C-alpha cells in the first residue's frame, strides 16, 4: 500500500513545526516558571487545607472532633503498568531496616520503578512482566517521595512525578544523614565507583572513623550509623555520621570490600563534612 505512505507523508507535511529555535528557547525558559507556579499552587492548597483543618478542629462546638484516620501501611505497594506508576499505599510506615517496597508489574515487558526524594533514593527495582517483585527494604528517608516507572533500560524519571508517597517514621528509626552545618561551609565528595573486590580497611566502619580522626573528634562527639539501624549494609553499604551538639557534622559512606584473612574490610566511597568539623584528611 505505497499510496498510504504517500498520503501520510503529504498529510504530515501539512503540519510543520512553527516555533523554531526561538520557540524552543522560550519553552525552556518557561519550564522553571511552571515549576514555581505549581509549587506555589501546591503551597496554597496545603495552607488552605491546614487553615480549614485547624478551624474544624478548634471551632467552639463543644463536641470533640476526631481527625480522619490515616491508614498507615507497613509496605509501600506500587503498581506499574509499563507507562506510569500508581502508589497503592499513599502513607507508609518505615521499618527498622527501611521502607518495605513491593512492585507489581502489569505490563507485558520488564519495567523499572524509581522512587526518590530530595534526601535519598529507594533504588530502582526491576520486575519481570506480569510479576510482583520480591519485597525489598529501601533506604528512603521520612517525608514525601516521588515515584515513576517505565520500561527497564530507559530513564524512567525524566518527566514529572507520576505519583507520590509519604513515608512516616513514628518509631524514629531513621537517623538523618544530611549535614547540618548551621550555615557554615561544607565539603563533599562525589560518589566514587569503587571496585568492591579490592581490600579496604578492617572494620567496623565506626571504628575506622574513630581511628582516622583521633585528634579531630571531641570527647562528646557521637559517632554512629545514619539511615535505618537494621538496613542491609551488604547491599547498600553503611553511613557513619559524626554528630556534634545534635548536628551532623560529618558523614562517611562505606561499602564492603574484599575479605582479608577471612575478616571483612570496608571501602569508603563518599564523604561530606562541615568546615566546623574539619576539612583535613577527610579522604583518608
Amino acid at each position, binding site marked *: 500500500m505505497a499510496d498510504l505512505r504517500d498520503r501520510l507523508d503529504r498529510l504530515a507535511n501539512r503540519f510543520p513545526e512553527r516555533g523554531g529555535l526561538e520557540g524552543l528557547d522560550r519553552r525552556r525558559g518557561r519550564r522553571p516558571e511552571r515549576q514555581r507556579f505549581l509549587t506555589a499552587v501546591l503551597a496554597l492548597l496545603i495552607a488552605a487545607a491546614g487553615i480549614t483543618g485547624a478551624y474544624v478542629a478548634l471551632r467552639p462546638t463543644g463536641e470533640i472532633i476526631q481527625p480522619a484516620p490515616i491508614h498507615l501501611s507497613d509496605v509501600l505497594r506500587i503498581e506499574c503498568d509499563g507507562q506510569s506508576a500508581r502508589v497503592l499505599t499513599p502513607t507508609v510506615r518505615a521499618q527498622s531496616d527501611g521502607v518495605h517496597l513491593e512492585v507489581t508489574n502489569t505490563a*507485558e*515487558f520488564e519495567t523499572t520503578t524509581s522512587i526518590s526524594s530530595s534526601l535519598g533514593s529507594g533504588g530502582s527495582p526491576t520486575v519481570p512482566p506480569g510479576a510482583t517483585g520480591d519485597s525489598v527494604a529501601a533506604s528512603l528517608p521520612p517525608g514525601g517521595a516521588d515515584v515513576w516507572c517505565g*520500561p527497564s533500560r530507559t530513564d524512567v524519571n525524566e518527566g514529572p512525578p507520576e505519583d507520590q508517597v509519604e513515608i512516616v517514621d513514628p518509631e524514629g528509626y531513621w537517623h538523618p544523614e544530611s549535614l547540618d552545618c548551621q550555615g557554615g561551609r561544607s565539603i563533599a565528595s562525589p560518589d566514587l565507583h569503587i571496585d568492591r573486590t579490592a581490600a579496604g580497611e578492617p572494620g567496623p566502619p565506626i571504628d575506622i572513623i574513630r581511628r582516622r580522626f583521633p585528634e579531630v573528634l571531641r570527647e562528646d562527639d557521637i559517632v554512629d550509623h545514619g539511615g535505618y539501624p537494621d538496613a542491609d549494609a551488604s547491599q547498600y553499604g553503611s553511613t557513619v555520621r559524626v554528630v556534634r551538639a545534635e548536628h551532623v557534622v560529618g558523614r562517611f559512606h562505606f561499602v564492603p570490600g574484599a575479605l582479608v584473612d577471612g575478616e571483612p574490610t570496608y571501602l569508603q566511597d563518599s564523604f561530606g563534612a562541615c568546615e566546623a568539623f574539619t576539612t583535613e584528611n577527610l579522604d583518608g
Partner: protein
Amino acid sequence: MDEPGAAVVTGAPASFEVFFEAHRHRLHGALTLMTANAQEAEELTQDAFLVVWERWDRVGAMDRPDGYLYRVAMNAFRKRWRRMHLDVRLRARAEDERDPFERAAEKDEVARALALLPRRERAALVLTELLELDSNETGELLGIKPATVRVLTHRARDRVRRAMGDEDG
C-alpha cells in the same frame, strides 16, 4: 556547543541547530498524526528537543542522535496519553478552539480515518508507514512486542484502507 542557550544568543550556527532544523518538521508531522492533535504534537516536539538540547554534549556524540530524539519523544507520547487529567484538559480545550488536525480531518479522508483509529494502532501505523521503522524498532519505541506491532499495523492499515476505499468509491 558547551552551553545550549549560546546558539540562540549569538545566532552562530551550531550542530544542535542543524540537527533541530533537519528533524523538527518530520518529528512534529509524525507526532501530529500519532496524537491527532497539532498543538499537543507541538508540545511533545519541543519537550523532546529540549531534552536533547540540554544533553547535546552527550547526545550529539551518539551515532544516531535522531534515535535518541525519537525515543524521548515516544516516551513522552506514551506517558502523556496515559494520564486521564490531560485527556480531560484536551477535551475541554477542544471546545474552545479547534485544532489544525481537526480542521484537516474535515477535508482529508486519511486524516479522518487516522483520527478514528485507537491510539496504539495510529502510533504503530505512523511509525511503520511514515517513518518506515520495522516492527522491532516500533515495538521498542512503543514498549510493546514486535508481534503486537504487526497486529496493530495490520488492523490500522485495514481500517484506513477501508475508509479510503469508502471515500474513493
